[in-house]
């Protein structure tokens, strides 16, 4: 076991896959010298050369579109978009091309690419650098959507995303780049897509969350346990496909579901999970997510957007009252 950051773990996972499979390569802005915005590509250009870690022009449409073509052409590209906000410059290539090629062409095409686009609030980068649009992509048939929440998972899930034969939208959280955790370097196995992790066992209520919000949910759960309230916390890790079995099993046990995410609540993926659980189990469900506002710059405004642990705890108490 060694301790490493979320960014370092992703770098390790990529390096392992690039060593294992010579068709894996990455393209994006400032990957070589800079090594990516958080060092998640550090020194990989030195090891693999500049035709496998490619510094591109500022041309998001072509970063994404070229990845689609390169995937059809027999390689496994990783399109690095830096911020999910800039990936919006290339949504067409992702949604109209990558996601649909296999289906439209009757199974002739496969698009094994990873579109890497970090989400979330990092502190003071405002409306065009802080968004969490993961729900958009869950709505698109053909895409896999992954939101790693810990260093070990950022390694293991990136590995399986690279190995996946369908296009994966891989959404790291910018606020987690520096998060440290234990990673077992000797175990090169990938973490399977579509499998949730139970972060904390509990009896009274299930909270489903993902990405950086899981940490806040865990704080709330710890606080509630002091009051004798036992919360089960599930990190979905993959949003599509989501681990229906794990969620249904947990809610069948606890009898109540709260879904919490940093993304805007309206149209958020929490609504999908809550609806599925309510339809299948007929238990009380609730959601907490951001107000439907752009992310503001100033500290008190940005803080007002966030879903803090006290709000989560209060919602749980209400649901159990």
């Amino acid at each position, binding site marked *: 076991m060694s301790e490493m950051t979320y960014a370092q773990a992703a770098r390790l996972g990529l390096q392992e896959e690039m060593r294992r499979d010579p068709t894996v390569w990455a393209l994006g802005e400032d990957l070589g010298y800079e090594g990516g915005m958080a060092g998640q590509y550090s020194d990989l250009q030195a090891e693999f050369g500049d035709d496998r870690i490619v*510094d591109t022009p*500022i*041309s998001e449409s072509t970063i994404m579109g070229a990845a689609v073509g390169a995937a059809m052409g027999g390689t496994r590209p990783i399109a690095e978009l830096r911020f999910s906000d800039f990936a919006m410059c290339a949504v067409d290539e992702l949604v109209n091309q990558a996601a649909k090629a296999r289906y439209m062409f009757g199974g002739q095409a496969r698009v094994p690419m990873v579109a890497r686009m970090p989400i979330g609030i990092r502190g003071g980068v405002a*409306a065009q650098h802080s968004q969490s649009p993961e729900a958009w992509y869950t709505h698109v048939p053909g895409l896999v959507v992954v939101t790693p929440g810990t260093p070990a998972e950022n390694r293991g899930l990136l590995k399986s995303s690279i190995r996946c034969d369908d296009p994966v939208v891989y959404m790291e959280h910018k606020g987690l780049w520096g998060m440290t955790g234990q990673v077992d370097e000797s175990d090169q196995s990938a973490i399977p897509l579509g499998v949730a992790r139970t972060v904390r066992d509990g009896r009274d209520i299930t909270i489903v969350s993902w990405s950086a919000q899981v940490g806040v949910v865990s704080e709330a759960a710890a606080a509630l346990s002091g009051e004798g309230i036992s919360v089960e916390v599930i990190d979905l890790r993959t949003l599509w496909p989501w681990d229906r079995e794990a969620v249904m099993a947990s809610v069948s046990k606890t009898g109540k579901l709260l879904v919490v995410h940093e993304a805007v609540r309206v149209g958020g993926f929490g609504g999908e999970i809550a609806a599925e659980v309510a339809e299948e189990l007929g238990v009380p469900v609730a959601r907490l997510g951001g107000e*439907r506002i752009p992310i503001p*710059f100033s500290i008190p405004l940005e803080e007002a957007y966030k879903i803090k642990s006290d709000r989560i705890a209060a919602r749980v108490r209400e649901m159990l009252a």
Partner: protein
Amino acid sequence: MARNLANEPARVAVMFRKMLVIRAFEEAAGENFFAGHIRGSVHQYIGEESIAVGICENLRDDDYLTSNHRGHGHSIAKGADPRAMMLELFGKVGGTSNGKGGSMHIADFSVGMLGANGVIADGCTISVGAAQAVKLLGQDRIVVNFIGDGGINRGPFMEALNWAKVYELPVLFVCENNQIAASTTTRLVTAGGGIAKRAESFDVPAITIDGNDLFAVDSTAGRVVSEIRNGSGPQLIQAMTYRLRGHFAHDDAGYRDAGEAEAALEHEPIRRTESWLLENGLSQDEIDGMRDEVKAEITGFVEDAEQADWPDPSLAFTDVQDVGAPIVPGAEQ
């Protein structure tokens, strides 16, 4: 008709002072970023001041301007209030957007400054749209779009050039070519004969000038702006320059050759304009006095920003939209 600037030291002094304001503003922004008073990212315009100032000196208040991530200099040159801008960088009440936008979203619509932008090249397409509005409304405003040399590799730049020419719109594209985009040398990722050639391929007239030469910028802008206002259709100015600092305040620019930035100091615009002023009637004392005055002014703005109030959290929920807006906490009754 090009003015003979050599005969107008008073005009040069006015522009010089604006350059000093931008420089002092950017130095203060960097210092306060490192001091932890400003969050996020601060892209300084240090070393490129002559471009914004020389261009904007030839614009009217009601002309429009769109900018990019490096927008502080453009905003000040267009007439935005540097005090309100500093308050915005601090996220305080009284900022240009009362703290909602921050450094990358400085805007002052009262002086035609339609916004800095966090997304590269999005200003290009907004500019042609603003120009279409100008045309529809029968106005004689023009629109200026500032774009970097890295930004020209995004599709919207090419689309906007084509569009502006097809509809013969009053747009001036100003490409600030500092030869670098973040840590990438743009030459290595840019094919063809460069920015001017791209414009010319759309029959958009393009001229390349030394952007650090205030006189070249001022006289070129004077001619081009009046041609555009008189119906020439879109044009492009490529202003060669050098980014004296890192991409943003927390970038040490370690990817550069040693000594490069130091060597570039010789060509930086404030020093060059200062020498000209000294040869043309201003004394060193007068110049130093101007510098001290500007510094004191900016220091005052920083103090104001430190003392200004934080916005009430309820402000986060206003100005989203009219129908279907979120409920503003405390405003239910």
